[in-house]
């Protein structure tokens, strides 16, 4: 799956799940914590979604505010995870 598609999938999931489908004002750089979208509870929901959608099973240490800050940060986290998975034996 390419970067554009990953970004769009995450974007659409967040809009549908936590913004009641309202995309206005929501950019891929928007701070999810400050937006009241992510807390410790919804973070785990999102981590489960990344695992199901992209087979990107994050370690507990990777589930942190830095990696989950925005749609862009999440996309990079998924890409890094997938790249690692494809290079390991």
């Amino acid at each position, binding site marked *: 799956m390419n970067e554009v598609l990953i970004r769009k999938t995450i974007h659409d999931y967040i809009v549908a799940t936590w*913004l*009641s*489908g*309202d995309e*206005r*004002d929501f950019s891929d750089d928007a701070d999810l914590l400050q937006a009241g979208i992510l807390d410790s509870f919804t973070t785990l929901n999102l*981590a*489960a979604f990344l695992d199901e959608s992209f087979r990107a099973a994050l370690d507990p240490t990777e589930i942190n505010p830095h990696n989950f800050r925005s749609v862009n940060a999440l996309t990079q986290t998924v890409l890094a995870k997938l790249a690692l998975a494809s290079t390991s034996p």
Partner: protein
Amino acid sequence: MRIDRLVAPFARTSPEHIAVDGPGESLTYAQLDQLANRFANYFRAHGVAPGDRVGVHVPRGARAIAALLGASRAGAVYVPLDPSSPPARMKVIAADCGLQHVVITPTLLSNWLAAGVCAPVCHLYLATDGNTPTPPAGVIIHPWADIAAASPAPAVAGSDSPDDLAYLLYTSGSTGTPKGVMISHRNALAFAEWAAQTIALAPADRVASVAPFHFDLSVFDLWATFSRGATLIVVDESTVLSGRRMLDRIHAQNITVWYSVPSALMLMLDGGGLEERGAPSLRVVFFAGEVFPMRHLRRAMAVLPRARFHNLFGPTETNVCLAHALPEIPAETEAAIPIGQPSCGDSIAIVDEQGRPVTDGEIGELLVDGPTVMLGYWNGGQPLPARHPYPTGDFVARRPNGDIMYHGRRDHMVKVRGFRIELAEVEAALTQHPGIREAVAFAKEGHLVAAVLPSDPGLSVLAIKRHCSARLPPYMIPSDVRLLAQLPRTSSGKVDRIAVQTSIADCIPSSPKPSAEVPGERNP
């Protein structure tokens, strides 16, 4: 008995026994006792006087516990402050209880400084090492090294009255701002002592701490554990929220006593592997805070045959006042389990709207009196004493055998994942936004939903969430925000709350993908 007197006896008789374990730090009874003394002596040296409020804004753990105990030993009233709440809410609480002294971590301090530290806070005590930033004028920041170097000489509050105020717990308020529930040493220990006796809590017990300290479930974790010289295993929130990791911890740490909202137990049932792996060390499971869906309760009891389950009941204002032990798995035909019979020395009455006692089987409001009933609400320093007997706002009915059954609330208070939320406080935060004319909040299937009538058509859901996130703790931010063109009204012109809920339910889009990790996303 008083909270500040706990711990010290075990520091003498079993100094090497672990009092608090994790996360990241573990303290023996002797170490916890000494650290609490250091905090107490340091607080006193910096002007904390008996009855002063001391805020503790530190993630759950050994350091936070030593600070709570130290404040108590200085004769002060401790105020646990939720580390996940925004600075704006902390400011409201600090102003309400005249908070001059706050123990805080460097990370949370930088959030406070960015948002502007508010009067009357003037002493900030760092609970860990870290950079000490330049404080604003009039504020003193005390580095951790100074507290760690303070005298460990025994400190104990000057007063020995159990009726002194021990702590304030801020709960969601129906007037739109949080309100401080005043709990005395007697109130807290009436419950802790009852619970410790009921389960024969002993030094060998390993009690899980999963509830936040600003949440009344933690009263058992802390003070029952330390009243018996047992060990408290502090589990961080992200572990609690992952059922599998929580279960790993129960196995690794041989946890014997558990007290949580049912959601936390259900996380271990669904996706946590509790049914495959069991948890043989658990001997007691207390649960409270919300209704345990019968099907899941039966599953939990079936996989934990050694554990004795107890349903505890009571608002923050009365601590636990009713309790029901479950000697066996309830029959499949049972619709609900009782909330129990009076406990902790409390007495109850069930009355109709005129205040007359109802007969068995008839629904009425629960009134409670006895040692667990709070002193009152702090109310900005003009305390409102508790009414006696205390009207809980809960509708209940008594069965012929004396068991009390729960029948809902008389007001707009709801529970989401066990957190108590006054809908009025959420609505007040929403309508503070200049682009919102009216708002109605309600709970649905474990979610907080807000129906919003905007005055600004350009207002987005994201803008509303951002606004809420700066004012409310995460669990009070509506997860589902609906922008409506109009709100249904009753003939008197008031918003018809029932019709709002129905109209929203009718147009709910397909719900998000359910996740095994998240109980709120699941239909029981």
